[in-house]
């Protein structure tokens, strides 16, 4: 049986890739991609810890991993919809989605 550490390693690597994407890129698209990768790694973590939980006693224990996963997916969908709306609005005003061009509030 694959032990817990394997899943944690993979999710750690995915989270690192997401963090790198967020802080190294200048356009808003890549930042959104990084956020999605981080959320996915969080779901893998939740699922792995649920799987290796020794007790499946109550009804909530049986499904807590997939339940949290589904709610993370719901939040990710909402976040993506709103942030894409913001992005298109910013594109209309600035003709760009690069984060170093959109600096109206810094001035």
């Amino acid at each position, binding site marked *: *049986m*694959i*032990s*817990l*550490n*394997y*899943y*944690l*390693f993979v999710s*750690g*690597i*995915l*989270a*690192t*890739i997401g*963090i*790198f*994407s967020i*802080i*190294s890129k*200048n356009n808003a*698209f*890549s930042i959104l*991609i990084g956020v999605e*990768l981080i959320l*996915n790694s969080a*779901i*893998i973590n939740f*699922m792995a810890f*649920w*799987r*290796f939980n*020794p007790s*499946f006693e109550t*009804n*909530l224990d*049986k*499904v807590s*991993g*997939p*339940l949290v*996963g*589904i*709610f993370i*997916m*719901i*939040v*990710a*969908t*909402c976040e*993506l*919809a*709103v942030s*894409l*709306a*913001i*992005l*298109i609005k910013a*594109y209309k005003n600035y003709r760009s989605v*690069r984060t170093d061009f959109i600096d109206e509030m810094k001035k």
Partner: protein
Amino acid sequence: MNNFFVNHISPQYLSFYLISLIVILPALVSVMTSDIKIALVSLFFTFFGISGYYVLLYSEFLAITQVVVYVGAILILLIFAFLLLDLKFLKGESKIKQKISSFFVALMFFIFIPFCMILKSTWSGENKVINKPNDIVESMGALLLIDEFILLEVAGALLLLALIGASLMIKREK
């Protein structure tokens, strides 16, 4: 050492390594490239491969949900928004200083998460043979619709709010 190889060449391990290859390599490609087209297409493989992990963790339900939500909705939404924008305004490299500093921050996380957090900890439930709950969908339905129905209501309200907010935000002003 010999025992290690015998243990690690089983279908479960081989499929785990294959899935890890499918997940991590395209994720790296999508981060390294400056072309967003390539990034979005390689993200398809990443999201699809992650559903394989859920199959290995005995949750087929979440695997199907992953394919439907991430590949079918989120990725298509990203590609659709990408098509609405002009391609040449997305181009442009970030500064070399920012790239180097962000590489070092990511390297720090890469060292910190596996070696300082995961390997140093002892998990109580590890390596135990676990009885598989084979009625996940049934338990989830009972939980969401009877016991904890407020969760489902809140999630529905959140989705509705996001929908209304997004469509209000991009409404054309007169």
